[in-house]
Structure formats: C-alpha cells, structure tokens
C-alpha cells in the first residue's frame, strides 16, 4: 500500500431529521485533521450512523455543510466521494470470490488487469489472507470476512475510510485482535478513519480522538486519556469506564477546586469542572481505582463506609460499599499479594485526593 495522506473532514452546523419532527443530529460541528483516527462513541440511537451516512453520501444533511479536504460534498454523489467504507455486516458481495470483491472498486475505476491483480494481492497480504482469493465470502470465518471487508475498503487507496461498528459481530477475543490490526493498518498507511462504535474499550484502544455522542450532540471530543481522566460532564464520566456518583450541593468554590456537601452532610473537596456556582446541585464523579484503604491524615477527602460485598477478580478485588448513603459505591483494590483485613459488614475508612474526583453537572 502506498503512503497516502489522509483526508480532512469538517462538519459545519450539520443537522439531520428523518421525519421532520425530531432532530437526530443537532448542530454538529466537527473538524477531523488528515490522518486522524476518530471514533464516534455513544449509545445506540445517538445518531452516530446517521453522521457517518451523511459523510458517505447515503443520507442528505437536512441543514449545514460537510467538507472533504475543504471541498463541500453535500451535492457529490456517493460513488464520486472516494470514501472507503466497512459495514457492520461486512456487505461482501456473496456472488463474487474474495479476489473479485477486492477487484470490484478497481474495475469500476477502469484500472488495468495487471495492476488490479497486483493491488488485490497486496491488499490480501496486508490482511494476511494471501491464499483465500478464490474463496467465496460464505466460506470464510467471521474474522476473515471482516479482514476482507477492511482490505476492500482500502484497496483503492481512499484518503478516508468509514467503519460502522465493524467488529460488532465478532467474539471478544477476535474483536480485540482485530482492533490492533486495524490500528496498525492505520498507523502504516496514514489514511483518515472515522470509526463508529458503542463499545468504549474499543474507542479508547484505537482512537486518536473520541467524540462521545448522546442524543444527537457531541458531549465531549478528546484524546482517550483525557476522556477518562477529565470527563466534561456526568454522561461522559458515566459512559466511559467505571464511575462512582455522589450527589451534593456546592458549598464553596476556591479557584480550581470546590467544596461539596453531600446529601448526608459529608463534605468533600473536588475539581470544579462543570458547576453552576455556589448553591447549585452537582454530581461528583470518582473512579473506583483512585480510592485508597491506606488512609492518612493529609488526604483531601476521608470518609467511612460499610463493606457490603467483596468480589475476587484475580488482578484486583472489587469492594462494594455503602458510602454517604450510596450503596453502589465501588472500590477496586489492586491485588498486591499482601494480606488485608477486609470483611463484609465491616466499617472502614477510605480516602482520595481532591484532584481524583470531579464535580460535574447534576444528574436526576
């Protein structure tokens, strides 16, 4: 595969409605630089596929404009956009062999036979299916079909490839393997990829940046680590990784941090990320692995709670506790092999730093 530079994509104030009553995509603005692996992540029905289909040209935007390499493409036919696409069910043509499937985009571009064959061969080698050219798609396993679909989307050297939940039909192990393979291919050929998934691990593993969708709106657009460490709102905090929620009222704001009074009276210090000021309701978000049992006086937040349940998970122990009236409070304790005196029903003290918990918008 030749070194292609990826394409730049820009959504400008894009809206989409199917029925003229509800907006499925609400004022989308998104800038994708060349060569980026961008993932649209969100729950089912949040409008991810719709965004992708508008980019591919199969759904018209109700309002706004989409640019490909700074060229508006709203009125460009799908087949002239030169965008590779991988579908969830692969959409491999069942009546053609694997090689014919791969040659299809080259044929319709009028490429010479010899060049076609060479490109098909190289694409098959890229996905390690060198000997499968003469098989029918139905004679391949799910993972192999998946690779053929990826190879087909790349064989004509598009600058942009769209993937709509391409790994959804695979089992967990295969899915993880394919994640790395797709990532490597992206790293090697530098094509821009817009990837749609509802699986947050997939998004975090593969992407340069992740756009978290909910209800037709991008909730946050960040690098995966930022998304996890610094969620901008409760939805993102909740959707990405595991998360403890504690509701309360803002008592005081001191620069970057604030003091929150939980509903049972406990006072906590937290990063002021997304609050409306003193007296407003807030939800504190705290990752389970940031909570410590080895407390010491200098910790910003010290509370006590009762252990409700302990689950042994090998590399860590999952402790469910009742903290400040929330009995879904989870603490993950890394398994370092040391003996610890934790028992169900016991009341223990736990603590964490103010920077590890974020005061976000209140959820009902």
């Amino acid at each position, binding site marked *: 595969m030749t070194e292609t530079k990826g394409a730049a994509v820009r959504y400008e104030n894009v809206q989409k409605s199917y029925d003229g009553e509800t907006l499925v995509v609400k004022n989308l603005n998104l800038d994708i630089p060349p060569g980026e692996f961008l993932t649209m992540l969100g729950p089912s029905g949040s409008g991810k596929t719709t965004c992708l289909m508008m980019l*591919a*040209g*199969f759904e018209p935007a109700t309002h706004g404009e989409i640019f490909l390499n700074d060229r508006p493409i709203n009125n460009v*036919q*799908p*087949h002239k*956009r*030169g*965008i*590779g*696409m991988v*579908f*969830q*069910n692969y*959409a491999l*043509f*069942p*009546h053609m062999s694997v090689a014919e499937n791969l040659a*299809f*985009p080259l044929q*319709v*571009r009028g490429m010479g036979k010899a060049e076609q064959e060479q490109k098909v061969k190289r694409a098959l080698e890229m996905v390690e299916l060198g000997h499968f050219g003469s098989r029918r798609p139905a004679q391949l396993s799910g993972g192999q079909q998946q690779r053929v679909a990826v190879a*087909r*989307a790349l064989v*004509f050297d598009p600058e942009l490839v*769209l993937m709509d939940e391409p790994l959804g039909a695979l089992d967990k192990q295969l899915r993880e393997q394919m994640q790395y393979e797709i990532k490597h291919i992206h790293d090697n050929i530098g094509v821009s990829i817009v990837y749609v998934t509802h699986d947050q691990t997939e998004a975090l593993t593969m992407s340069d940046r992740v756009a978290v969708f909910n209800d037709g709106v991008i909730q946050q657009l960040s690098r995966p680590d930022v998304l996890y460490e610094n969620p901008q709102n409760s939805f993102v905090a909740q959707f990405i990784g595991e998360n403890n929620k504690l509701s309360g009222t803002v008592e005081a704001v001191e620069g970057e941090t604030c003091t929150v009074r939980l509903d049972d009276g406990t006072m906590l210090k937290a990063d002021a990320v997304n609050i409306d000021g003193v007296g407003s309701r807030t939800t504190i978000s705290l990752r389970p692995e940031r909570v410590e049992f080895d407390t010491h006086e200098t910790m910003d937040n010290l509370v006590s709670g009762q252990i409700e349940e302990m689950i042994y998970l090998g590399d860590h122990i999952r402790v469910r506790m009742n903290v400040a009236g929330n009995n879904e409070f989870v603490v993950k304790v890394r398994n370092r092999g040391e003996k610890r005196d934790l028992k169900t029903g016991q009341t223990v003290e736990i603590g964490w730093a103010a920077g590890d918990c974020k005061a976000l918008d209140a959820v009902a």
Partner: protein
Amino acid sequence: MTIQTHADETNGTPEVLTTADGKPLKTSIARALRREKMRALLLIAPLLLFVIITFVAPIVDMLFRSVENQIVSTTLPRTVVELDSWDGTTGEAPGENVFNALHFDMTVAVERKNHTQLGTRLNYEESGISSMFRRTGRRVDDFGEIYADQFIDLNSAWEAPATWVSLMASPDWIAEQAAWVADRDAARANGTAFEQPEPAFAIREGVAEALPRTADIYQAFAEFIQTEDQDSPTEEEPWNAVYTGLHDDLLANPNAASAFSGETATLLSQAANAVSGFEKISLREAFIDADEDWGNPYYWGVIQTFSPSYTSGYFLAAADAELTPQGIQMKPEDEQIYLYLFWRTLLLSVTITFSCLLLGYPIAFLLAALPARSANLLMILVLLPFWTSLLVRTSAWKVLLQQQGVINDFLVWTGLVSDAGRLVMINNQTGTIIAMTHILLPFMILPLYSVMKTISPSYVRAAKSLGATDWTAFWRVYFPQTVPGIGAGAILVFILAIGYYITPELVGGTDGIFISNRIAYHISTSLNWGLAAALGVILLLAVMLLFYVYDKIVGIDNVKLG
C-alpha cells in the same frame, strides 16, 4: 461405527450395543423410529390417497392410453391372425382367407355394433377407413345369405334352431338347458320370479376338429345371443355367416359326418354331398363390391400396421409423423400442425415469462424497497387478481381489447388510430400474451419479492462507496443476487403458461391457442383420447426436460421461493 472398530481392535469380535433390557440398540431404535414413521404416514394418508386417486392414477392411465391399441385385435381377432402372413409389398390385396376371417369378424362386430368404433379409430390413421366399415357393416349379413338359402332349400331342417343345437351343443349342455327350461316354466306357472340365466353354451366334443369354422362362428353366435340378446340359441336361427362356415367346412372335409351319429350325421352327409354343387360366392368380391377400398392394399396395410395391441402411432401423430406400411414418415407439409403448435406454445410461454419478468421485476423491487405500510398496500394490489375469478379477468380483457372495445375506442377518440384502423388485439397471439401475462404476473412478483426482501441495502451502498455508479451497483451487485428469485419466478410462470388452457381458448383465436387447447379438443370433441394422451405425455416430457436443463444451468438449489 467407531465403537465397533474399537471392539475389533481389542478382541476381534464386534461388540453389539444393547439397551438396558438386553435388546440390541439398533433394533430398539428402529422400532422407535418405525412408530414415528407410522404416525407420520397416518397423518399424510388422506392426502396421499387423494393425490394417488386424482393425480397419479389419471397420469398413469394417460401414459397407457397414449400407446394402447387393443381395439383392432379385439374387434378383428380372426382377420389380424390371417393378415399376419400377408405381404403388403406385393401390391395385391389379401386373399380369400383374410376376407373369410373378416366376414366372421365383421358379422360379430356388426351384431355388437362396434365396427364403427374401429372405423373411427383407424380413421385417425387414414381418413376414409371409417366409411369403409360403416358401408360394409350394412351389407355384411347379406354375404352368407346365398348359402343359408341353399342349405334350407336342400333340407328345411337347416332352418330350425334345434337342428343346429343338436349338431353343435354338447349333450351335457342340452340336458342342463332342458332342466333350466323346466325350472323356468315351473316358476312361471307358480307366478314366482325366476332370475337364473340360461347355462352358458358349451360346444360338443369333436365339432371343432370336424367343422372348425362352423364351430368358431357358432360359438360366437351362441355367446352373443345369450349375453347380448338375453335369448337362447335354441330359439334363434343362426347368422348367415354360420351357414357360410358350414359350407366351407363341408367343402374342405366331406367326411365330417363321420364325427356325428344318428339324425345329425344323416343330415350332414346329405349336405356334404350337395355343397360341391352349391352356387358359390367370393367373399373377397362381395367386400370389394360393398366398398371398393377393400381391394386397395394400402388400406389393408394400415390395418396390418395397427394390428398390434400397442402402437407408437399416437406419438408419431403427435409429432406430425405417421406409421405407414413403409415405415415411419413425416406427414405431408399441409397436414403438419402439432410440431408447429408445440413450438408456438413454447415460444409464447417464453414470451409471457419474459413479459412477466419485465413487468414484475420493478414492482417486486418497489415492494422490497418501500416502507412496510405502503408495501402492504401494494402487495394487496398485486394479490387482488387472485381474488377474482379467472374467467371474469379473461373476459375483462375481451372487453378491453376487442376492436369495438375500451382501448380501441380511446385510441380512436384521441385520434391516435383512425376508426378504420382499429387495432386487432384479441383472438390472436397478442391477446393471449397480454391476458396471460396479466394472469401470471403475481407468480413472478411473489418469489422475486421474497428474494429481494432478504437482500440487505448495505450491498448496494457498499458498491457505491467503492465507486460504482447506480447502474453498475444494480447490475453487478444487486441483480446477481436476485437471480434465484428470477429463476423461481420464471420456472413457475413458464410451467403454468405452457399448460394453460382457458385463457388462450377465450382470447387466443386461432393463432393464439396452445397445445393444451388441442389436447382439450381431442379429449372432448374428436374423442381421440390416444392422441390427446400422447400430446399430453410429450408436453410433460418437454417440461421435465426443460426443468432438467434448467437445473443443469441455473441449479435448482439456486431457486428460492422465499
């Protein structure tokens, strides 16, 4: 299997697996399955019976009728035997022996009134034969009158039925018959019912050797009198043919009387002495006199050709050929119709199938692409024709298509055609094609639709994203996936079309009819069931052959009905 192999390796004898109660496992399974099978069989039994009686049996009967030809050998048994040794290539009509046999056969056939049926049958092969049989039938009884008169002139005893009974019947039968008469008369006197039939006639021992022809024809006479006329040989004067037989026998064997005794022997030897002086008649000439075609070896050739009980004649006729005494030949150009009719049926069926495909494909596509609610409405419209009678629909086409019909009126009104130039769209091939395409359209749409419905729209999207235009995406990606539906629809429509009858009959005129209309004609009008059966068998074979070819090319696994 694997267990047995394993046992073989360990101790050399295969180990029989048994159930807990010690019975071999296989037997137990077989028994359990047998019960299942019996139950399944019981469930389908009513339908199976129905199908066998109403479908399989008629087809087998039809297959049989297409080769069956026993009418010649049952109606003319003696002639067929004599004719066997006749050499048709000599250019001479057969000799006296054949006509003698024909005389007897015709006499019996005329009495039984089935000589015209035979005439009709042979007329299928050569027109003109029917009138030969009809005309001769009226005269055949007179042929032997000359001998009857001379016997009676010689001795009036020959006129009495009793003379003949004492000559021909076995003494046992005479005794039995007398006893039967006594019983009957007693019953009559008592006024009680008497249902018993007369004992079946039995010939006297030795008569068949002494007077073979007489015995032969008299037996036929007695049987006919007893079974058909419900009368008794003791009360009926024999046919003139019997006198002819006696004349021939006595001429050939003047010592015949020695086989008899008493009065009959005297009577017979008197006759034997006289016959050589009798006035003679040539039956050959008598027949030719009745209808000169009996002297034509060609007609005899036809009779000889169709003497066997089974014939390929119907099949040959169905293929516009004929079995002549010289072998199989094509019929003259102007008499050939069936091959052309088969060809036209095939051609029209293909045309109708293609019209259905052309019209049905876009509809099915629309059905599969539309949202459920509109698709359901459209589906109802597609199925609507099924809810109306076929006859009504076909008649509606008559109203629309005829020269004074709705479409022509409209065209004339718009000025597209002149009043004098009204289009002929009915009672010809156009009418058949239009009406049948309409009637068979749903059979194309339904399988197409059910296949198209399973094709995910992402295939076409994928093709377009790969750079294919709308047309390329359709032709290279969508269309090939609908081929199984096309196959199913085409085969359904074609097979329905090729055997269609009612619509071509109503709107086809003369040049829009199908082979099935001809079959119906032979079944109900010309009553040539053999030919109808042969045509039907050929049609069946043609469809099966096409089905086979289709399977080889498209593959029947590739046909999807849903």
